[in-house]
């Protein structure tokens, strides 16, 4: 019996058990993943993880609560545990206060998506990485295997998403000089991995010159697509959430209220056609394939979950309950790859950013560090790698008047988060050419 059949069996049995005033959503999340951690191109730790989780969300008499458990993968055993938790939820629900913003469970349809892969296992997995990386000082993580996500409810909704995928997220080091790369996909290609390593190695070779130490101040910068992906991570931190806006923690409040604007060169949307994550959210609602959030510098809409829509009597747009982007894409511009250094002229080529945080949320001010292959450029020529610098900038400045050009190409930045489980999702971002980027330390 497949995992999907086990899940459907359990979900349908629980739904049959429901009392008249009850509705139920059942979620499944499972993965079979091989994680191999590398340091100095040797294996530090290998961990194979087989995990399954079933979650029940019971709504009863205007109350809602969620119970989750680690599943064994056997329908009889898991159903016993699920029924026990359903009974507990039923009893606890009545002791809770009424939830005025409860979103009634509805049937948002049925969907099915499966992206099969071709992954290495065992000896092949290890030698495929160990042999080509032996020429470098490589640190990183390989994660590969299957992920399954299911969602169904007592109104008849049923979604299933599964894929077999991998990523090799790695850095190459030469002393303290380093470059970052990530090879990810559904089908491992030894040739593609070798090419990825070779390109990263060539980039590392460009960093042999002595480090240039810059004084704090404002510089022209080119943020490569990976650095833009790091920066746009801030959009997941309340910046595009309608609930955050209504509760005082939205960093783009001034954009929402028209007090500030970004450059007309800057547009952001959710693009589920990237295929990195399922369209259905935690309520099973299907988000639009494309949802424009910022259009030519002006905010079109924030992400609004159905719960926020009910609380604030505002139209929803099928956002997840956390109202963070799930498939963020920043629109490309006109700057050609071959013109980047020329247009940068004298300034900083920034490959990656690190450890970003709001330093003044109300003014969308962000602090963080440069990291990896960040280079000083003079008159369009790379001069030297820089000593890492701390920056403190307002998004309103750097994505507003400060935004000079956007590249005509974008790069996919797959999510490599593995907290609790291997994440789905990612971003698609171009590079940005920015003036007066403020470095402080």
């Amino acid at each position, binding site marked *: 019996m497949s995992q999907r059949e086990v899940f459907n069996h359990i979900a349908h049995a629980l739904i049959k058990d429901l009392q008249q005033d009850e509705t139920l959503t059942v979620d499944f999340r499972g993965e079979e993943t*091989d994680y191999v*951690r590398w*340091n100095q191109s*040797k*294996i*530090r*730790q*290998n*961990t*194979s*993880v*087989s*995990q*399954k989780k079933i979650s029940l969300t019971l709504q009863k008499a205007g*109350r*809602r*609560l*969620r*119970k*989750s*458990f*680690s*599943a*064994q*993968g056997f329908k009889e*055993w898991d159903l016993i545990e699920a029924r026990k938790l359903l009974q*507990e939820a039923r009893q*606890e629900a009545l*002791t*809770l*206060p009424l*939830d*005025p913003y409860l979103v009634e469970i509805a049937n948002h349809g049925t969907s099915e998506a499966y992206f099969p892969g071709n992954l290495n296992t*065992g000896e092949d997995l*290890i030698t495929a990485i*160990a042999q080509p990386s032996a020429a470098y000082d490589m*640190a*990183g*993580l390989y994660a590969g295997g299957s992920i399954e996500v299911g969602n169904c409810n007592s109104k008849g909704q049923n979604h299933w998403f599964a894929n077999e995928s991998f990523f090799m*997220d*790695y850095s190459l*080091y030469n002393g*303290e000089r*380093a470059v*970052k790369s990530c090879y990810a996909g559904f089908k491992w290609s030894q040739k593609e991995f070798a090419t990825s390593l070779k390109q990263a190695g060539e980039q590392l070779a460009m960093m042999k010159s002595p480090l240039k130490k810059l004084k704090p101040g404002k510089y022209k910068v080119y943020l490569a697509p990976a650095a833009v992906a790091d920066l746009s991570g801030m959009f997941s931190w309340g910046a595009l959430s309608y609930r955050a806006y209504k*509760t*005082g923690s939205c960093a783009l409040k001034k954009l929402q209220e028209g007090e500030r604007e970004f450059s007309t060169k800057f547009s952001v949307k959710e693009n589920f056609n990237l295929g990195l994550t399922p369209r259905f959210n935690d309520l099973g609602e299907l988000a639009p394939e494309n949802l424009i959030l910022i259009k030519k510098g002006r905010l079109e809409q924030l992400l609004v979950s159905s719960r926020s829509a009910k609380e604030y009597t505002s139209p929803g747009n099928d956002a997840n309950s956390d109202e963070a982007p799930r498939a963020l894409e920043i629109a490309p511009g006109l700057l050609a790859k071959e013109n980047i250094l020329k247009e940068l002229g004298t300034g900083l080529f920034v490959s990656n950013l690190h450890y*970003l*945080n709001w*330093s*003044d949320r*109300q003014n969308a001010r962000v602090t*963080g560090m440069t990291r990896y292959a960040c280079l000083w450029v003079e008159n369009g020529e790379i001069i030297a790698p820089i000593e*890492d610098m*701390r920056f*403190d900038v307002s998004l309103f400045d750097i994505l507003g008047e400060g935004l000079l050009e956007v590249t005509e190409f974008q790069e996919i930045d797959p999510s490599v988060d*593995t*907290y*609790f489980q291997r994440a789905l999702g990612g971003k698609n971002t171009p590079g940005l050419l920015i003036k007066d980027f403020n470095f402080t*330390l």
Partner: protein
Amino acid sequence: MTQSHITANFFNAISDFKKQVDWVGLKFYSEKTTRHVIRNENPESHATQLDQGIMVEVMSGGHLGYAATSDLTPEGLARAFQKAKALTNQASYFKATEFSYEQRPASRGNFQSPYLHRLDTLATEEIVNVLMKASQSLKVSDKIVSRIAAAMLVETQIQYISSSGAEWTQNFDMVGTHYTATAQDTKNIQVRSTGNSLQIGAEAFRGLNVLELCEITGSEAMELLEAENCPTDTMDLLLAPDQMQLQIHESIGHPLELDRILGDERNYAGWSFIKPEDFGKLQYGSQLLNVVFDPTEAGQLASYAFDDTGNPATREYLIKDGKLLRGLGGLESQKRLGILGVANQRASSWNRAPIDRMANINIEPGDGELDEMIGSVKRGLLMKTNRSWSIDDYRNKFQFGCEYGQLIEDGKLTRTVKNPNYRGKTLQFWNSLKAVGNAKTYENHGSPYCGKGEPNQIIRVAHSSPYCLFSNIEVFGGLS
């Protein structure tokens, strides 16, 4: 499947497993986490998760490898063992380091975190009532537009046996609470929060001054609405223990982790500016700085008897009289580097391998009376409660922001300031430490959220500290 069934499976299986590899360890991990969130006196979410699984560790060809499964049956255990054995055999040809039994001591014993009343004596209704009242208490004005009262209760059981004779169990009861008030007027939005995370029982919700704390929190949020911006200047900085928690964590804890120094973490959280040869020599801070690794302090969030390799936990000085003595590394890192470490190789759950982590990292009290410390400052700032944190991948250049600041002028606390931030470089900062508060100013703060490792792991840490005074620190505020 009950814990006694799983224990029986372990003992049945291990005699077979140990014939097939050099060494094997089996861990059963069960954790029940209950979260309640009340927002603006309405229920926001109520969730309980029972997370259970088995971790199989094997040693083959001098390499340690792992396989984890949520399938608790004997067949599931056997499959995990075969998976661990197969991949570890292959991986051993490319291993980073040669390990032996010495990295997995045959410890025996038990640990139970302190409590007066078990967490399972708390009814959901009782917790939710406390949170509802807390939410009400935060509302000291209609300008408090968001009031969040949240609680997380965690009950963890870990059982471990190994083929070399280890047999230990550890049980933890923990509670984390968080209360936040957001004040908003036509011009400003300001946030003030309070809360803590401790090893404690049901008493966490009974007879404590939660409601009084929430009223103060709401009032301080209102106070910040009217406050001026923090000045931009270089001046003395007095940090309260709830900000010292973050300062210790980011600029002492992480750089001293030996696995970072070894480069394991280079692709994720980063490396460290500390070199192996710095231990025993480097003047990390002023002579007033004394820092201990102490998982033996009862009630702190990261107390335990053994780390996840079975290494018995002991209190050790990391920094004494300002000098760096010892790193945060477990038995594997100690073997790799050949320097002193501590019992800190910990896993976030059953599905992750143990790595070097902080536990309780505490600054010992000094002899400063708080009034005298403030009195010694001609012009400075007091900052409380972290709201923003960022530091580079070598743990050197940091910038931290706080919720609440007060100017110190001519030895007295004067005006409240909003958006207080400061920045600096780690060694320079700790060497500017010029006064350490006494035991009366000492507070314990725990956090359930320290992220690190590949695959990623979130683990619990705690940092106790007195008030500490630093000289010549660059401070600044928000945009007006």
